[in-house]
């Protein structure tokens, strides 16, 4: 059981000043794990309600944006008696460094979890230099 439930509540994504949204839905910031591995970085984001068709991953210059659209499913002729969470889209923006191999970025969605693999560019991978003795 997580200790800090408050931390786990959905947080609305911040909007840049002067920018308006075109969709009349709330937008939340998905929780993410970012793991640095030897050859790549992994970004894992919880986006329940999103599938591979409704998520967009875009890279513009150094800005990596993930956006997931969620269509709320409201049962017909029912009335909401307990409402602890709201349904909305997800958005999160990251700046990435030049150390990432842009062409090699991969994304997959499984059970509402988006997983991005950002491979490190050849130059930053630690390379072992062979030491040879002079003949």
């Amino acid at each position, binding site marked *: *059981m*997580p200790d800090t*439930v*408050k*931390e*786990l*509540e*959905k947080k609305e994504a911040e909007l840049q000043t002067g920018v308006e949204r075109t969709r009349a839905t709330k937008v939340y910031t998905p*929780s*993410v*794990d*970012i*793991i*640095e*591995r*030897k050859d790549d*970085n*992994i970004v*894992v984001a*919880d*986006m*329940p*309600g*999103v*599938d591979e068709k409704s998520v967009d991953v875009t890279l513009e210059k150094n800005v990596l944006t993930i956006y997931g659209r969620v269509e709320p*499913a*409201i*049962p017909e*002729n*029912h*009335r*909401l*008696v*307990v*409402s*602890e*969470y709201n349904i909305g889209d997800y958005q999160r923006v990251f700046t990435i460094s030049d150390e990432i191999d842009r062409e090699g970025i991969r994304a997959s*969605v*499984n*059970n*509402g*979890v988006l997983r991005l693999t950002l491979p490190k560019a050849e130059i930053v991978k630690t390379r072992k230099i062979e030491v040879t003795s002079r003949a």
Partner: protein
Amino acid sequence: MLWTDFERSGRQVDPWRELERISRSLARAGAPSEREFPAANLWVASEGATATMEIAGMDAKDIDISVAGKSITVQASRRPEETKEDEQFHRRERWYGRFSRSLELPFNVDADKVKARYVNGVLSLDLPRAEAERPRKIEIKSE
């Protein structure tokens, strides 16, 4: 308290619905920090209810659902991302661990007819009302 609901609906006020709404808002005001996990939504109709929870990244077979009378309990756990020795977390915000969440319904549930679906990380439970408790239409005979 602002009673704007009255004007907006324009319909006759259902006193039971109002009572329900008030008791709910009171319950919430009493313990705002003791939110349960995961958050749930519950819709109710005369023939049954639908409960939903956002629990991404599970296997459907790892979610345990049990029904007893008016209450349903959902139990599951999620493992943290695994890291090897030379790997490190830069961000760690996603939840992990085990949870057990119970919901109390306003009626008894027909346990045999409960349907559960887990789609894109959202669990939704169809909870039909027990047959014996369903509202029945009474025919009036004129003589």
